[in-house]
């Protein structure tokens, strides 16, 4: 297999793995925020 193809595949794999690790943190943080959003009550609109 040509080194360029290999390099391309490793790059894509790295992007995917690093991306998913970061996304896991996004899911965790937004999940916590989502619970707060659901619990929070609306303030009445300003007149």
């Amino acid at each position, binding site marked *: 297999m040509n080194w360029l193809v290999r390099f391309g*595949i490793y790059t894509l794999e790295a992007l*995917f793995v690093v*991306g998913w690790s*970061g996304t896991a943190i*996004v899911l965790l943080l*937004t*999940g916590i925020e989502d619970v707060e959003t659901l619990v929070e009550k609306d303030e009445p609109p300003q007149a």
Partner: protein
Amino acid sequence: MPSSPQDTGQVSNRVRIVVATSVMLTFISFWRAAAIILNDLGSSAFYAGGIAEQAVGKSAPWFVLAVMLFSFGVRAVYVESCSMFVRGGVYRVVKEALGGTLAKLSVSALMFDYVLTGPISGVSAGQYIAGLINETFLFADAHGWIPRAVHVIFHGTPQVSENWTAVVFALLVTLYYWWQNTKGIEESSEKALRIMQITTVMVVLLLAWSGITLLQTGFHLPPLPTLSNLHFSTEALGFWKDSRIAYHFAILAIIIGFGHSVLAMSGEESLAQVYRELAHPKLKNLKRTAIVIGVYSFVFTGIVSLLAVMLVPDAVRIPVYKDNLIAGLAMSMVGPLVLRLAFRAFVVVVGFLILSGAVNTAIVGSNGVLNRVSEDGVLADWFRHPHRKYGTTHRIINLVVGLQIFTILVSKGDVYVLGEAYAFGVIWSFVFKSVSMLVLRFKYKGERTWKVPPNLKIGKTEIPIGLASVAMVLVATAVVNLFTKSVATVSGIVFSLGLFTIFTVSERVNRRKHAQFQQQMKEQFQLLQSDTVERAGLGIRPGNVLVTVRDYNTLSHLKWVLEHTDTKEQDIVVMTARVSQFGSAAYGLSTEQVFSDYEQQLFTRAVSVAESFGKRVSLLVVPARDVWSAIVQTAINLESSAVVSGLSSKMTSQEQAFQLGRTWEETSEPKRQFVLQVVHPDGQVDTFRIGPHTPTMKPEDIHLVHRLWLNITREQGLENLHHHDILTEALTRFAHDYAGRDQKEILHDLRRVSRASPSAPALDSSAGTQAVRSLPADEDEPISSNKDEGPSSSPIVGP
């Protein structure tokens, strides 16, 4: 207040036109917004699992679950974009970040997504129906209910071709919605909510019954997505089908599997499109909408795909139920066959509703997007020409539906091929969106009330870790998809480049045309841009007459108003609404986008009519998603006493009044009453009061009240009683009785009274008669008046 960037000085011979640039919307709750999005997003549950398993084997549900989990991250990107731009769709965001060329390319990918949503949904619904028909025939045959003669004709149990039945069904549904959209159906969040309620009943039953089945039969989870468990089909490897590359790299194999399941999260773009219409508090409601659709689609698409692999036997799951997996799930439950067949029929009904809704969403969405780019000068004005009878952008609708019909026929009812191609549009529009958002983190300095977490601050630089992570996953998946989805890559690139070329050529042609148009505009009209519609902006007095116009060939109602109105006493405002649907409401509009050459022609004609009467009119263009709410909002904002319209070509004057009355009821306070006058081509005028008003009383009722008043005022201490006190007491007692046990009796009496009443005069009125109606409440007795009376001259005072 309106402002004119280049025309601060008045030019006497030019007509002033106020162009409102904010779309007039009725706001919706987050539940309704979620229902609209889920009608698109949730529909993929019916086919995503089957397509993924055909591509990667039995481990597919893990990929679908991963996609549904990842969709929370994609949704976070959309929430951030909406916190920056109220209309934060792909086109706007990409244009802002990466410029017009890439924006056109991103819209082309999005259009590919939209154009394919229709065929895949229609074909999938058809597959479910055909599957049910065949199963029913088998059931009937097993019970000996099929006559021998039928057996002979079909050489056994009658069976329909699932693919061709799906093609026919998809064509019928597409043609049905083509006609509905040509006529201009209203987008109804109510309808979306109802469909989602029925779908929820099905999902709950499905989960509960699956739970019971699993408890009784035991269960095995699908194999984990390891390299040894992944079995890619030849089609799933696309350009790599002759290579072993997918089996040499474990993570690459996972990316391939993920890429084949990505269509499960199609429909996220709708989030940006409904954001504008969300009620206060907007951002919080957007987050709530995102949570609802996230959890719902995770359970529906993700868990149901998992259950299908756990419950439907391997022998039939792909061979029999690959295109109607939920039907297969229904048939694999424990319990009597009749009950399972009945539940399958329910699944088919729900599938029919939600998937047909998605066919409509596809037409509405692509019409909205093409309208938007057309308004931006990227697509020739020819496409935006309103339908002569219905006023809709029929040429765009024809183009989209034509492409969809072509796709349905080419696919020959194969859901897998459609799904593979569909994923191209889904993933590339997400890639454009997330990369643009990443660029905007460094480029855009405006307000941003929410950011995708986490963000690492080093000195003055903020590193958007969360946003970059989501973008990285999307880019890696999209690039791998280019190699593994050969059909999608070829068709997607051909389609996107084709559309991109049309956009680029149209833009060049339009630029030249636009310069000429601007010159003509400068000579004839003075455009004043305004965010909102206000009386001061138009320089008019309260109690004015609002005349709605659309077709420059039918302005007889404007002539009638001009003939009957003394403009020294009462101002006339000629208004036209530029209807935009969900899609285009999501984008910013500039004056030139709202005021096209069609509006110029329309107003040129209106002004020449007014000049022929020697009277002055004010001109107004409002963009609107719903024409009725635009009229009601404008009449309220301008404090108009009357709205005058021509008779619609598709509804009666009563129906026009009913629509307007219903919209008035839905409009939030403060609001005021007005009169609607519908002028028929023969000069007959029907008049309706919009909003609550004093009912017209019959003489005998007046006499009755008077007699009662005479009797009661003879009583001691009641000498000062008024007539209205008697009415108040009577109505209070009536309301009390109606709320209590006499309701049935009251309704019975009212029905008798209603039957005995003479027919409504407006229905059979002769020329010169005006029928005054209260709508949408029950009709009052008519007040007859002369047609020469003209529009209502004073504001109607509320009760």
